[in-house]
């Protein structure tokens, strides 16, 4: 009886905690049914959007954790990327090499911009979001000055493909076909395996050198790590596997199978470890075994013809997804470092962080730099996938859409996770894809669906900010019981009172 109540309580709080996500899932489902679009079309579209946008959304997580709120300033990171893309296209470079050069140009720019934005935010504590939003508009103005007047006007640029035929300013759209288009998407898997192997080799060598210099203690993990990648590299020379790896796209069905196999192996390792190494009681095995069964069930589901059809239709570019996975891993990993712990502390309470000797301003600036650099890389992935670079429009709404996606996933101004980012991207972009068609079916007018999705994206931001303001307000009314975000540490506050007393 008690257990039952407990279950309902848990289920209730689960529903409440995920209310935004659940509401959106319901809207998406309704829109999908209404639109009547084939699943192959929707799933394909959603995965394309995931490729393009997830990286940027993930770039928002670190500032949220560091207490800077939703970073509207990622527009500035996108601008850094676009300047780099322009340079690379102007020099006539392309392919993966051209992309690497864009990264090399964009990164230092983004570091500089992130540093400046961070400095500004430190002077505007408590108003970072509005500052970021306005700063985005301001940066857009400077960007237009650069691209409309300075390039072609002040700096002579002779390139009829890039410059408006009048002789001044950059054209409205730059075609990336033949240079940067699919520069990341089209990297073959076998090349990825090779490059990763050499990188791991280099890292291991550096570790060995550090070990010999007695600055680092090599451990078992380092060798296992190297062994796994060495094995993978070796396997890639088996002809069948080499053939499979020599494409740049992966059919979703294969991707799913591969992911399930890897997860299942990890789970099996866990089981083996707990039986033979930790000698834990058999009861603890229930959970991993159930997980294994679930994986099996998911795999079985792929044999249903309808699902199989969809899964075999969609083809994923491999490298972007690996980069997204890498960023998720990075976001997770950074939290287990001293820097990550400092960020969390600063995000919870600046006054407490300061009293514990953490350099609050520096931590915030680092968070901004990381976010801006990641955003610039995200924009590079976005542009190479889209293939046309809308010079004056590509960056303008990136912050709003990325933030809306993150919030739809259930994140808030103070809390965001990788999972929320990914779920958010899926839901938000599903709605983007099906809303016009649903509007057409429902009102005989695609425009209404279009309005609806714009309404939704801004509406969810407004709602989330209002809810944030509401909780802040409630916090202020309650007496401070510690952890309240007082700008002044406890001691000076008392002193001020005392000095006026006299």
């Amino acid at each position, binding site marked *: 009886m008690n257990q039952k109540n407990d279950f309902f309580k848990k289920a209730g709080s689960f529903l409440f905690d995920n209310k935004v996500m659940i509401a959106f899932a319901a809207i998406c489902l309704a829109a999908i049914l209404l639109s009547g679009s084939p699943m192959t079309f929707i799933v394909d579209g959603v995965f394309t959007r995931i490729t393009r946008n997830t990286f940027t959304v993930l770039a928002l997580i670190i500032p949220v954790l560091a207490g800077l709120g939703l970073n509207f300033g990622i527009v500035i990171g996108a601008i850094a990327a676009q300047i780099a893309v322009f340079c690379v296209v102007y020099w006539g470079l392309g392919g993966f090499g051209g992309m690497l050069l864009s990264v090399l140009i964009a990164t230092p720019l983004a570091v500089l911009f992130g540093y400046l934005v961070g400095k500004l935010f430190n002077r505007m504590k408590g108003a970072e979001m509005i500052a970021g939003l306005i700063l985005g508009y301001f940066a857009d103005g400077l960007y237009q000055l650069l691209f409309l007047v300075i390039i072609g006007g002040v700096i002579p640029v002779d390139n009829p493909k890039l410059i408006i035929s009048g002789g001044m300013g950059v054209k409205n759209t730059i075609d990336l076909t033949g240079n940067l288009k699919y520069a990341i998407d089209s990297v073959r898997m076998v090349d990825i395996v090779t490059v990763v192997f050499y990188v791991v080799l280099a*890292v291991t060598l*550096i*570790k060995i050198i*550090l070990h010999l210099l007695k*600055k*680092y203690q090599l451990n078992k993990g380092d060798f296992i790590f190297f062994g796994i990648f060495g094995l993978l590299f070796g396997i890639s020379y088996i002809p069948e596997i080499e053939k499979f790896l020599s494409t740049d796209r992966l059919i979703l069905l294969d991707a799913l199978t591969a992911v399930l196999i890897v997860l299942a192996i990890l789970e099996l390792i866990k089981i083996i470890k707990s039986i033979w190494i930790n000698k834990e009681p058999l009861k603890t095995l229930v959970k991993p075994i159930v997980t294994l069964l679930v994986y099996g069930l998911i795999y079985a589901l792929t044999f249903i013809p309808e699902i199989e059809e969809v899964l075999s239709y969609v083809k994923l570019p491999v490298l972007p997804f690996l980069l997204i996975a890498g960023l998720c891993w990075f976001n997770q990993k950074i939290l*287990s*470092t*001293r*820097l*990550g*712990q*400092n960020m*969390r*502390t600063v995000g*919870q*309470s600046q*006054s*407490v*962080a300061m*009293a*514990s*000797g*953490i350099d609050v301003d520096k931590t915030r600036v*680092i968070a901004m730099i990381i976010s801006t650099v990641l955003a610039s890389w995200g924009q590079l992935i976005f542009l190479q996938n889209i293939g046309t670079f809308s010079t004056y429009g590509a960056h303008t709404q990136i912050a709003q859409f990325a933030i809306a996606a993150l919030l739809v996933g259930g994140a808030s101004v103070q809390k965001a996770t990788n999972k929320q980012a990914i779920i958010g991207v899926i839901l938000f972009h599903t709605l983007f894809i099906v809303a016009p068609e649903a509007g057409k079916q429902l009102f005989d007018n695609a425009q209404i669906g279009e309005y609806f999705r714009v309404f939704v994206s801004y509406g969810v931001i407004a709602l989330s900010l209002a809810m944030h303001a509401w909780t802040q307000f409630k916090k202020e*009314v*309650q*007496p*401070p*019981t*510690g*952890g309240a975000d*007082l700008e002044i*540490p*406890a*001691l*000076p506050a*008392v*002193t*001020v*009172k*005392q*000095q*006026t*007393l*006299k």
Partner: protein
Amino acid sequence: MDDQYLLSMKNISKEYFGNRVLKGVNLNVKPGEIHALVGENGAGKTTLMNILFGMPVIYSTGGFEGEIQINGESISIDSPHTAMNCGIGMVHQEFMLIPEFNVTENIKLGREIGEPTALSKIFGNLLEKMNWTQMSKEARKALDSIGMMNIDEYAKVAGMPIGYKQFIEIAREIDKTGIKLLVFDEPTAVLTEGEADRLLEIMRLIAKKGIAIIFITHRLTEVMAVADSMTILRDGEFVVRKDVKDITLTKIAELMIGRQIDKLVDDSLLASRDLSDNKIALEFKDYHVDMPGERVKGMNIKIREGEIFGFGGLAGQGKIGIVNGIIGLFDTQGDVFAFGKRLDLSKLGEALRNNIAFVSEDRRGVGLLLGESVERNITFTAMQIKDQFLRRIGPMKILDKAKADQHTREMIKLFDIRCTGPSQTAGSLSGGNQQKVCLARAITMDPKILIVSEPTRGIDIGAKKLVLEYLTKINREQGTTIVMISSELVELRSLCDRIAIVSEGKVFSVMKPDDSDAAFGLAMAGVREEEAV
């Protein structure tokens, strides 16, 4: 000779904007002793501790004079970080804990133990991996060392009882390596009685380990119970350093308060008045005010017509809440009667409409429209409530500029407000002149009851005298009942007929201005005289 002291602060003086808050104070603490630092609000305890901790507020206001020695060596503490490195720790009054973190994370805040990684070798220790196993072990040890076996080091701090939070703070300080001196700033103020007893026990436990403790508190009974020695401050001056065994509670109270009562008010004004218990101006019955930090919890008092009545007591005990409840800024319960009529305080402006005017203690926040002119500040309440300074033209009410101007000029003359004229903005006046503007506005209402809260806070001695004299004058000449709330006992004793000492949200005792210093001191500390012996 100074070697016996762990810490000695010598001849410390500090000025805030020309206002001397510390005048040559000495503080000496031996290793392993519990040293109480006592004094009224405003005696300089907090400033002294801010100096010890090198708080930024000290340096941004011009530093301090004097010398700090630790173990006989002169040192300069210029930031909280240096203080930490010198082995000085603090248990804050407002907890420096993060509710969303667990106990280990909170104890190790800012001092996390990292494991080097390959990346941290290249990019510095920010990229070290956190070693939570080691940290939780040390947190456990710190908790055990203060006898807190029942706090789980992995539990989240949010939702824990306040006492536990305090103990976690203490564990954090203990966990710091090389801690020599621990400051407890009013640690028992927020605790229940049981928790407070436990805390005192823990303090003894810590002192036994050779760590010196500076114990700041208003509860003199606790000082007697736990401290070895004490320093008394009064008005920023060093009074005495004594061993607790050589002093009595009454003596402490007397030393804390004891000072000459300057006659701030001219005796000629003391004309006979007819004060009678039958004519009550203001009555509180089981009055509660829900003002955070200054809660009033069931107050019963009758204030006679024509009386000057004072409310005194320490900060945080609820005296400020009394006036804010009547103004209507915070929710109230219970009854307030003005001349026998019950006030409905849930309606904003109710008190004003019943001829009660106020001067708020929060001059810049509640008292004034800082961006508006002196004239508008003086006249706007009367305009809102009494339709004064307005001309009716049909359905519209229009400001009667000439009348307002004339009235303002009279007030400027009466109170000697130093300003360029009625149109100067209130925000650009000095504190004393701002206070006069507040008072002028209250007088403009022509009230029968005037409630002034901290009327002399932050104003110079000349303005202080003028304000107090004027309060006496309107009391004597116009028969206005005056309720005065003040942290400065001297001030209350110089002009009030009766003084109620507020303690823990209730009237602790009603005293006469010529009662002894010791009696006042004990009442402020919440100790009955019979208990003191």
